[in-house]
């Protein structure tokens, strides 16, 4: 069982010892159930920290900001950033390490286990408890969440309100950490690709209809890209102008920047954007599900990522985020790799 007090104690300790420049964790929100990111610099502030099944955000995304900030600083603070990571978040750390986007000494990882279950889906919970104000959410270490509202305590089976990603999670405990809080207990899943298999079973026409309807909703707010720890490129294929402009960039270079994706939110452009993003995440997506959670229009983006995850597993026996020293899926070749797709 993860004890919040232990988490605070660890956090306080590393801040006091100046081991980290700050800690990114979770604190209570002022406007809703789900906690928000907390950036904690002083040991006294650790009291703000919270940990429970509503801590859904993947905070590793902030390492991208941190790196950008650091490159601009003349004398950067080289101390690591303390980071609270769940199982899925820790796999994101492994990818960032694997791709040498960060170094191991850049982060101090406070690993928290999801205690056999996972985090919950705010929308599913809201539907269950209709209008009641949630005061507290706890794991019961079995298959339930204990929800406390002003009406009292209710026990809700975990699978009814767990985030979709958690229903298919392969390892609901951190796989890389400096401190581990809680047990490395693994929940058994019958079929990790159950949801995607439903989509796969549809005919081509049905799938086209499904995806056209879904992607036509996209308003290109780019929340999916912004929330994703793997979307760290300085320049994205979806941007129509180049951000990597210096005084030496010639007018020709700027003029010739290809607009791969136009700004119009129409089917063709939305498809290209989401397809390119999905392909670029092949072998990199660790299924934290943040893109899908952030989407204001409920586009089921995890299906795209899960499909590629399944292909990687079935064709190459590849699973992302478990080993920082593993060569990346896209850049490695093995003799036994299937070749039957080459014609």
């Amino acid at each position: 069982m993860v004890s919040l007090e232990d988490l605070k104690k660890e956090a306080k300790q590393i801040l006091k010892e100046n081991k980290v420049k700050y800690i990114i964790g979770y604190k209570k929100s002022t406007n809703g159930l789900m906690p928000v990111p907390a950036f904690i610099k002083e040991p006294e502030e650790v009291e703000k920290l919270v940990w429970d099944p509503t801590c859904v955000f993947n905070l590793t995304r902030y390492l991208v900001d941190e790196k950008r900030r650091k490159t601009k600083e003349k004398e950067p603070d080289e101390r690591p950033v303390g980071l609270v990571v769940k199982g899925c978040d820790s796999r994101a750390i492994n990818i960032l390490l694997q791709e040498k986007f960060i170094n191991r000494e850049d982060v101090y990882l406070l690993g928290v286990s999801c205690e056999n279950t996972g985090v919950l889906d705010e929308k599913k919970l809201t539907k269950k408890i209709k209008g009641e104000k949630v005061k507290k959410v706890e794991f019961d270490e079995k298959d339930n969440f204990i929800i406390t509202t002003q009406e009292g305590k209710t026990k809700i089976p975990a699978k009814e309100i767990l985030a979709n990603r958690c229903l298919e999670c392969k390892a609901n405990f951190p796989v890389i950490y400096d401190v581990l809080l809680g047990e490395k207990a693994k929940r058994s899943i019958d079929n990790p690709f159950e949801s995607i298999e439903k989509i796969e079973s549809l005919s081509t026409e049905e799938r086209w209809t499904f995806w056209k309807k879904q992607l036509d909703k996209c308003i290109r707010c780019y929340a999916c890209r912004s929330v994703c720890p793997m979307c760290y490129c300085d320049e994205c294929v979806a941007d129509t102008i180049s951000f990597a402009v210096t005084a030496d960039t010639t007018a020709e270079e700027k003029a010739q920047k290809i607009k791969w994706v136009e700004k119009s939110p129409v089917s063709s452009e939305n498809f290209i954007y989401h397809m390119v993003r999905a392909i670029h995440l092949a072998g990199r997506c660790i299924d934290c599900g943040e893109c899908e959670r952030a989407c204001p229009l409920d586009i089921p983006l995890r299906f795209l990522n899960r499909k590629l995850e399944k292909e990687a597993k079935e064709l190459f026996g590849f699973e992302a985020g478990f080993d920082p020293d593993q060569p990346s899926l896209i850049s490695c070749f093995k003799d036994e790799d299937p070749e039957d797709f080459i014609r």
Partner: protein
Amino acid sequence: MQKVLTKKSLPQWVKKLLSYTIYTPVEEDDHWNFVATDNPEDINLDYPLTTLSPKKIIFPQREIFLEFCDSTEGNPEVKEVLPAEKSAVIFGVRPCDAKALTFTDKVFGGDFKDIYYWKRRNQTTLVGISCNTPPYTNCFCVSVNGSPYSKEGLDILLTDLGDKYFVETYTKKGEKLLNLAKGLFKSPTAKDKKDLEKIRIDSKKKIKRQIKNIKKIPPKLKEMFDSPFWDEESMSCLRCGICTYLCPTCHCFDINDEITSSSPIKGKRIRTWDTCQFPDFTMHSSGHNPRPDKASRLRQRILHKFLYFVDRYQNYQCTGCGRCISLCPVGIDLLEVLDKVRDYGS
């Protein structure tokens, strides 16, 4: 004009309006959205809040300005494109979203009228629905001089009285819709009026979220331009476009040429929504960016709404719908930010 309409006769009224394009809130996946329908039974006025406000109908995310074709390399033909002539009725407009249109009216009006906006605005009739209970957890219209039964921007306002709607019209456009189905509307009884009054008083009380002393905020913001406050507050911002794209009052846009053929050069000049939260919004061609980081961009969003717009148009550019709060992927709370601004340094 004041009338009442029984709930059962709502579809009969809508049936008389089928020469218009009819929009109604519809639940899609896990959210609500305004969708065109030709089935009067689809009208649903008991809904929370749509993810996108009716702004998307009056000021669509994509607007074609012109088409061009340059088959002779140097002698282009250019054809103006205008919105189709088709009157529309939007049912179920929340008062905050209608009020937001009175702000975009100011922006798209003035010396240079935006004829795309005005064409759609003028051919659309807005039928509002009072918020007897707050439709959203983060509603705060009352704090920004609004109300759950505000008539600003609306042609008609309906208020749910249980088995009937209290119907008020404010414009000729609104009266016209009633006149198309005269027999269905009855005069309100004294009890109806009393019920309406009670519902209104209660509805205001039910709004829990608020900004205290909002008047102190603009002068405070004026002093806070160079404050480190913005660095702190923007730490968790992801620089996505949700807060602005979903805002019913945000109006910023981009104009681009999109090519459909490169030889001969053929394509369209298209307006699309844009947002001050994206880094390329202000980036010059030289690479110079007057707002280079997320701190300056969050500051722009807050100052534009609660200082610049107030100075220019004497209104907060916010109607308290709460979308930017509820849908921010990292829970940035506008009201918390404003509370901190008001109390900053004291």
